[in-house]
Structures are given as structure tokens and as C-alpha cells.
């Protein structure tokens, strides 16, 4: 330690580089906050990078490459398209650089660990939550992200299965490109055709909030989102959104760095660490909000 304190290049034994899917959404800001906090708590240099949006897949691969080039002690990655990072990560492990994955797993045997919960499970939880608020045979609408975004696709898939299992009728499944405004339009249009929609599941909270806005004044239709952003939690407290599935982004970030450091120090860690899922509804929303506010001052 201390041999390389070159700030600009940020490499060195006692440093961890975290490459996220993006840094420009609240969810990933929580991951970032967790990772930073861990760095502070444990006294390790943490560099956090990520492309401008989740769809910049190759850009993320480039970032991993550039990070490896600076020889950190370990690298923590949340792959946008799991399969794409495998070749470059193989290169890293060949150079004895420990690799940890968070949030999204990849089919990569040489990884040191995966920390997170998979999106499919999150979707299932969302589906179950929504089903619990409805009657058998009710009509349900699904708001998806841009098609091809694998995390969003998995959430929709999970939710759909649970909802169908519980006997709900899926009357619409439409994409809204993770855009709040588009989600609102999409929901409005769905309501034109299906006035009897009784519940909505959305692959993220932004779209859930957009859909909610379209349903204002249309009676009590529960909307379930995913992610657990501040805005969503506040909406739940205000009695608008029915609930959201939070994947503990902060913990993922924190544990990612924590475990990376352990690996650097030669400690053995679990290959698969579950960061847990929070189901946030009116009951626990207030306490969740306080936590979120404490981490993103």
C-alpha cells in the first residue's frame, strides 16, 4: 500500500475500480453511494465509472479495458450485457486481477463472486405483490423497458409468470423505453382500449410513476414499480404508488467494494452473495426513505 498514490491514474494494490452500467440514474447513484461509503469506511481508493446510459454496451467494455490498464487491486463490474464483458474480464483474470460482479451476473467462471439478486426474482416478487392486491381474473398491464435491455426483460418475465400463475389476465404489454413521459403516454393509450385494467407492473420506478400519472383520477389502480428510488418511495408514502421492489443497490455497491478488498487481502469469500430484496409498501416506506436520504445527501 502507498506505493502508488498517483491520483490521476488511480491504480495500485489498495484500489478498487467499479464499472457500473451507467451513472446517470438514481438507482446507479445508490450503488455508487454504497461503493464510496465502503471505500471511506475501509480506507481504500475507489474509482467509480460508468457510461452515459445503460445502452452503451461497448463503451462499458472500453471502460473496463481502460480500468484494467491502470492496474487496480480489484475490479467490480455490473455488466450491461452480461455476455459482452466476458472476453475482457478473462483478460483481467489472466493477469491475476480479481473480478467481482454486482447486480447482474454473467456466465463467467473465473469471477471471484457475484453480489446481487437477479432481476427475474425481483420481477417475480413484483408480480406476487401486485397479485396480492387484486382478485383472480383481473386485467393487468405491463410496462416494459426498451426491448433488449436484459435486466428489464427479466423483470417483466418474472412478473408475468407470477401474475399468470395467480390467475390474472395480462391485457397489455408495451414498451416505454425507461422514459417517464413515454410511459405516461403508453399507459394513457392502454387505458383507451382496456378501461378495466385493475393493476400495473412496471419494469422500473420511473415508468411506474409515469403510468401512475396517467391513471390519476381513474380510480384506485395499484401500480408496482421496481428499483426503490426516492421519488417512488415518496409516492408510496403519499399513498399513490402501491409498492416497489428494491434490490438494495446501496448494499450491492458497499458489499462489492468490501468483498473486493477482502479478495485483495487474500481472504476467501463466497462465490454468490445475496444482497437481498426489499419489498416496499406503505408499511415500511417511511423508514426506507430515511435510509435513502441518509445515503444521498
Amino acid at each position: 500500500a502507498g506505493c502508488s498514490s498517483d491520483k490521476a491514474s488511480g491504480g495500485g494494490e489498495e484500489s478498487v475500480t467499479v464499472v457500473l452500467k451507467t451513472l446517470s440514474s438514481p438507482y446507479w447513484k445508490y450503488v455508487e453511494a454504497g461503493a464510496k461509503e465502503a471505500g471511506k469506511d475501509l480506507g481504500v481508493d475507489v474509482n467509480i465509472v460508468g457510461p452515459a446510459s445503460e445502452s452503451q454496451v461497448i463503451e462499458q467494455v472500453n471502460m473496463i479495458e481502460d480500468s484494467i490498464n491502470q492496474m487496480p487491486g480489484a475490479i467490480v463490474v455490473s455488466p450491461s450485457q452480461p455476455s459482452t464483458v466476458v472476453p475482457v474480464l478473462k483478460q483481467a483474470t489472466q493477469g491475476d486481477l480479481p473480478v467481482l460482479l454486482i447486480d447482474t451476473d454473467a456466465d463467467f467462471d473465473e469471477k471471484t463472486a457475484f453480489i446481487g439478486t437477479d432481476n427475474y426474482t425481483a420481477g417475480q416478487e413484483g408480480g406476487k405483490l401486485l397479485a396480492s392486491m387484486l382478485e383472480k381474473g383481473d386485467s393487468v398491464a405491463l410496462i416494459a423497458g426498451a426491448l433488449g435491455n436484459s435486466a428489464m426483460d427479466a423483470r417483466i418475465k418474472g412478473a408475468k409468470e407470477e401474475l399468470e400463475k395467480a390467475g390474472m389476465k395480462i391485457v397489455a404489454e408495451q414498451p416505454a423505453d425507461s422514459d417517464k413521459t413515454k410511459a405516461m403516454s403508453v399507459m394513457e393509450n392502454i387505458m383507451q382500449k382496456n378501461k378495466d385494467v385493475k393493476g400495473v407492473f412496471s419494469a422500473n420506478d420511473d415508468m411506474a410513476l409515469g403510468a401512475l400519472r396517467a391513471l390519476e383520477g381513474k380510480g384506485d389502480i395499484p401500480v408496482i414499480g421496481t428499483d426503490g428510488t426516492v421519488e417512488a418511495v415518496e409516492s408510496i408514502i403519499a399513498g399513490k404508488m402501491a409498492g416497489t421492489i428494491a434490490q438494495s443497490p446501496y448494499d450491492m455497491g458497499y458489499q462489492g467494494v468490501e468483498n473486493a478488498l477482502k479478495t485483495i487481502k487474500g481472504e476467501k469469500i463466497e462465490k454468490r452473495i445475496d444482497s437481498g430484496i426489499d419489498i416496499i409498501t406503505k408499511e415500511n416506506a417511511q423508514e426506507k426513505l430515511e435510509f435513502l436520504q441518509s445515503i444521498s445527501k
Partner: protein
Amino acid sequence: MSEVIIQKKPAPSEKKSFKHFLGKFGALIGLIILSGILTLLSDKFLTVNNIMNIARQSSINALLALGMLLPILTAGIDLSVGSILAVSIMVMGIVSVTMGFNPILGILVCLLVGIFFGWLNGILLTKLRLPHPFISTLGTMNIARGIALIITAAAPIAGFPFMIQFLGGEFIGPIPISFLLVIVMYIIFHIFLTRTQTGRYIYAIGGNKEAAHLSGINVDRVLIIVYTISGFMAALAGLVMVGRVNSAFPLAGLSYELDAIAAVIIGGASFFGGVGTVWGTLIGAMIIAVLRNGLNLLNVSADFQMAVIGVVIIAAVYVDVLRQRKSKKGS
């Protein structure tokens, strides 16, 4: 030059003026056909409720496209509208929600931020003499989006006061105020472009920049006005967006420039400048909105939506091409 027509034209008859009308708003046929098909396919399409829906949904793009028309008329482009929208509403959020100032001040600041970035585009283009607005506005697109992210640490802002939500969220009877705003803005722009000196200069610059300059037109000044207006319209569209979803988020308007440009071009404007009308642009924006609405109504699955949008864009413009070709043959 190549379409030299020697025939004496007939006195302006009824028939001619209808042709003239279609000539101006050729994409209208595309819109009518598209609407016709959707009416057949879904009984929900042609209802007052749904039409108001479309009106509301089209308003953001309609405003952006109206702003975009100006740069395109001058043979330019403005890639930064989506980012300007974002930075304007984030600043407004900070002023009127986070800092709790008067909403009127928030609205003013929002529009001023839009005007500022638009003006910056104009200055970069004319004073720095960058070769094409693609460069200057691509730069601003990144800068404005970066600032939108930086000032709020990527967090959205919700809970805007009623006054700010008014434009985008309220109705007069069944009619969304945002659509009334669209109509008013289009009328103002129509008058501006056809009846004022600066408006005509915009066409002149697009038609032949050199000739405009030699005719004593201050080309730089007009271009700065053009981009400033485009920035202003982006902020106005942002205001409507905030009213619509009651929140501002830094990725708002991402890649909206494509829809805006598409509306302008589908509406018959030329990338080479000098050609295009506000009404054509409105029709272009409506075609896009109707299409999206129809796809949702028909519950077309996500993967097919993209392909269908592609086909319809081409078809809508092709209808216009066919019409023009026919009317040329016929004359």
C-alpha cells in the same frame, strides 16, 4: 432549375387551390390514410377521448419540432433540443422545488436557460464559424446533458407547484391546455415565418446564404435568432413535460431530437434549406403521435413496434412523393 415548366398556368381555379393546399401540406394524405387504417383496426381510435389523448401526447414533440423547423429551414440542424429541455427543467426544479422560490420565477428561469443554450448554439455557429451546426449543437447536446446530470447528481425532482403543472397537465373542458398552447405557438410561428422580415430571411438564408448576405441580410444575426428560438421552444416543451409527469429528470428528452427532426422532414421540409411550413411540421408530429398511439391501442408487441414504425415513416413520405409525381405529370 431542372423542372422548367413553360406552359402558361391557368387562372387560379378551385381545383388549383385544393392542389395548392395539398402541395403545401402533402403529408396530410399520409396522416389521413394512417388514421383511416387505425379507425378500421380499432374502434377505440376515433373517439373524442382518444383524439384528446393524441393531442396531449403529441404536444411535446410538436413544440420541439416547431423549434427545429427553423434551423432546418436555414439548412442547419439542432441536435441539442432534448438536452436543452433537460437542463431547463432541472434548473427550474432546483429553483422552484428544491429552493422553493415562486413558480413564476421557476418558469422564467426555465425559459431563460433554454434561450441561453439556444443562443450559445447560435454564437458557436456564427462567431466561432464552426463549419456546420451539427458540430456546435452536438457539442451543446453533450454539455447541456452533462450539466443537467451534474447539478442534480442525476436525481429527479418531483412535486412541482400547480402553476408550473398548469400548461402540461390541465384541461379546458376535454381539451388539454398543452394542445391549445401548440396551436397558439404554431399560429404565431406561421405569422412569424410568412409575415415578418426575419421570418422571410430565414427562408432566404436557407435558399442561398451567399445571396442573402449580398442582399444586405445580417445572416449571423438571423442564425442566432433561429437557434435561440429553438432553445426557447425546447424549454417550453420541457415545461409541458413537467406539467405532464409532474417531475423533472436529467435524462428527460433523451434522443427526442430524432423525433423532432423526423416530424419536420415528414412534414415536407428540406434538409437543404428554404423549404418547409409550420403546418407540414404539425402534420409530421401528428403522424408520429398517431402511429405510437395506434400501436399501443392494437397492443402490437414491442419487437414488431419498431419495424412497423420504420415502415410507416417510409410509407407516409412515399404517399407524398407519389402525389407530387402525379400532380407534376397531370399539369
